[in-house]
Structures are given as C-alpha cells and as structure tokens.
C-alpha cells in the first residue's frame, strides 16, 4: 500500500461543489491500494484570488500552515492534492519560500503565533502524478473490468493542472496524459482545439459574460469534434463548464447538454463501481451513457 498526506481542498468536502469527485477518488484509491491520510485541520489554500486582499506574505503564510501541518503530523509523506488550484498554491508557496529565504523566515515568524514551523521538506504533488509516476499505466489499467468502448470524449485539461508547473514534463500546449487515461478505460479521446483553454476560472462569478464566452468555445468545439462527453481533472473547470451551459442556452439560444465528468469517475465505472460510487448522481447534466455502463 502507498500512503500519502491528503490535502482535499474546500470544494471536495462533503456537500460542497465537488462532493462527487471525492467519492470517485475513494473508489480509485481502494482499487489501486492507495491510502490518503487527511492532513489534520488543513486550511483553505487561498485559491487564485487570495492575492487581492491577502497580498504576498499573508497568502504564503496561509499556504505554509498546511505544509507545516503535513511535516509535523504526517512526516515523510508527500502532500497530495486533487484540486489543481490547491496543488498550484502549495507548489508556489514551496518555490517562493525556497527562492527567498527572507520570506521563509517571516512566514515562520507568523506560523510561530500558532505554534507551527515550516522546515521546507513537505513535497506537494498532484494526484495524477501519483497515478502515473507511482502506480504506473500498467497497474492503473489492471483493475479495468468494464470497457467504456464507444464513448467519444473530449479531454479538457484546462489551465492550472497544466500551467505553470505541468505534469510529467509534458507540453503546456498539448499535454496527452488525460487522453491516455480516456483511452486506457476503453473510450475514445477525440482531438479538438480547446483542450487547454481557460474556462474563466474564478472570474466566472465576477465576469460571467466573459467567462461564458470561454465556456461556449470549449463546449462548442467538443461538439464539433464529435465528443459526447467532456472529462476534466479540475473542480473549477468541471463546475464552470457544466453548470453554465443552461445559462448560455438561455442567453444565446444554443442547445448545449454536454455531460462533464472527472477522470476518476471514468475510472470508477471502468473498475466496476456503481453509478453512485462514481458520484454520477452528482452531475447537473446527467452522464447517461456512463450511467448505463455502470448499471450493466
């Protein structure tokens, strides 16, 4: 069994917007013998808009609290996130404090107020890195009992899973790991041109029209290239691209009804999990084809 310190992030908590993501991750972990140990009392990473009010040091201190808790409570375990924004914030904190020792000193002065200290040993990683690098493609494929044959899927990587750090040294402009995962479970990854387009991110709230233009481009391109479903590794991408389709239909007369699921939901179904295990009851746009395979 492989063990990791687990940083779930706010949106994956029970009853929040990516509740169903976490359920599918459970299935994948059980099948692949991965144990995720939740970091005790972890706090919000600040996400990508913490800079506005939080500035530099308070934002980094917030991130360093999680790193310090990982070092203290789960020593030696890599700190794994399933949310790209969390992973990015954690990695940025590590990088910045490593590059600027003065910031590291100041952060520790702040952490000392709560009896904590960040040494600089915690290693933030993305769950996909764990799957590809530690488990490997062969072992990831081994538990597949149901092929998702016949489903055409647009793999939507988006921004923060992909930039600025990226994964396994893959290209920023055309990463292929998500396509490989789609093919691994027997489905077909369709090539399309919006794989790494921004969905508007956190600005879907504050600049809805501009974000919805991005979302429209993504969904439209997926349709144009024959996809029946979009798959993503990102909570914000998932939520934005799925839930605003009805808004776009209302405002612009489109007829979008494209399911948007997580890669772990595909894996759960392929591994023989029920629709409920895979969190498919959490879709706003039903993933009917996937559900019918799960029920078979």
């Amino acid at each position: 069994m492989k063990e990791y310190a687990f940083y779930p992030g706010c949106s994956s908590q029970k009853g929040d917007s990516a509740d169903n993501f976490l359920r599918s991750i459970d299935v994948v972990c059980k099948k692949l013998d991965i144990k995720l140990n939740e970091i005790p009392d972890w706090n919000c990473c600040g996400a990508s808009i913490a800079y506005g009010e939080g500035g530099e040091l308070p934002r980094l201190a917030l991130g360093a609290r999680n790193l310090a808790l990982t070092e203290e409570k789960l020593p030696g375990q890599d700190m794994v996130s399933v949310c790209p924004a969390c992973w990015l914030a954690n990695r940025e904190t590590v990088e910045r404090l490593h590059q600027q020792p003065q910031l590291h000193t100041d952060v520790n002065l702040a952490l000392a107020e709560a009896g904590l200290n960040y040494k600089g040993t915690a290693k933030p990683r993305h769950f996909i890195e764990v799957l590809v690098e530690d488990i490997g493609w062969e072992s990831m494929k081994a538990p597949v009992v149901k092929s998702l044959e016949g489903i055409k899927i647009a793999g939507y990587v988006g921004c923060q899973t992909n930039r600025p750090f990226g994964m396994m040294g893959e290209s920023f402009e055309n990463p292929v790991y998500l396509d490989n995962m789609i093919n691994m479970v027997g489905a077909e990854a369709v090539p399309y041109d919006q794989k790494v387009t921004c969905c508007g991110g956190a600005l879907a709230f504050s600049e809805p029209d501009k974000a919805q233009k991005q979302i429209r481009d993504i969904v439209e391109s997926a349709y144009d290239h024959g996809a029946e479903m979009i798959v993503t590794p990102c909570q914000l991408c998932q939520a934005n691209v799925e839930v605003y389709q009805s808004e776009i239909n209302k405002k612009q007369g489109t007829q979008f009804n494209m399911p948007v699921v997580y890669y772990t939901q595909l894996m759960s179904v392929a591994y023989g999990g029920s629709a409920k295990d895979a969190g498919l009851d959490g879709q706003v746009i039903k993933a009917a084809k996937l559900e019918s395979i799960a029920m078979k």
Partner: protein
Amino acid sequence: MTTNTTAAYQNSFLREVEAHVEEGAWVKMCMQCGVCAGSCPFGPHWEHSPQKIFMMIRAGKREEVLRSDSMWMCTSCYNCLVRCPRKLPITHIMHGLAHYAHRLGLAPKGQPTRESARLFWNNCIKHGRINELKFTLALYFKDGLAQGIKNALAMQGIGLAMLKAKRLNPFAIFGGHQCKDKSGIQKIVAKARELEAKRQEQAA
C-alpha cells in the same frame, strides 16, 4: 502615502514597483514582444495587456496603471507566464499590481473581481475554509439587497440544480466546514500582515 511615495522614488514609478509590488523587480526585463498580449484569454476585454502595463510602468504612468481595471481581469490561467520568452512571472506581477493598487485605495471602486477577491479572503480567514454557500450569497448580495435578490433569482436554476446534485449544502449557512484552530489562523494572518507592512515601510 501617494505623494510621499512618488517623492521618495523621484517620480520613478518603475523603482516604486520594484520595491513594493510582488515580483515587481522583473518588470524591467520585459522586451515588449507582445506574446503575453496575444495569449491572454480575456485579452479582448482588457484596456491594457500585460505588455502595455509594463510599458506604462516604465513610462511613469502611475495613476493610469494603478487605476486600471486590467489587472483584475486576470483569470490566473498562466498562459502568458509559460510563453514569455524572457520568463517574467507575469501572472504574479499582475496579481501584485492589483493588490498594491487595492492597498493604496486606487483600484477601481466596485470592480467585481476586486469585490469577490475581498469576500473570498474574508470568508476564508473567518472559517479557515471556504464556505461555498456563504461566499456565493455574499457575492449575490454585494451590491445591496434588491440587486442581490435579482442576481439570486437569475441564478436560481443553477442553485437548485446544484442542490439536487447534493453539491450545495443549504445547512452550510449555519456553519458548514471549518477549521478547529480558527484563532491560530487569524493570529498567523495578523502577524503576516504586520510583517508585510513593516517590509513595505522599510522599502520606502
């Protein structure tokens, strides 16, 4: 502060940015190639692309830069950052400029992303974790009750769909997920704010 700061830098806004803005020391490295401007998803909606902002900083256009709403249009997509041939951490500079303008009180009033960033941070510090329901409600009602009810009604289809999918918990209004050591978090942030203010003073 505005006039003092300008005086301290003998009208060199570039030097002010270098001293006070997160990653601001990179601005002078820009070679004006325009790759960032062409890579920005919200590019068509910005008055000033990163390229223009960096040029304006060198030209000393302090007010225009700090009052611009362009920095607040950054979605944090990191497209510019990975493509910049000079490796400027553009995303961070844009965030740093937005924060600096916000702190000086020069950022555009009521700018929607500025508002949502403020609400997000406050929500985060108060509970240690984001309470998605309270954050969403606060956003809808940021422009007052009447506008809030209008916003909430416009989005009620989405809210109900999320509720049905069990991805929005109505009971979160009574608490929701929180950290145990909230007071520790608040102390950390207060201390970090104090140290940052001190650093800013020393830089001046």
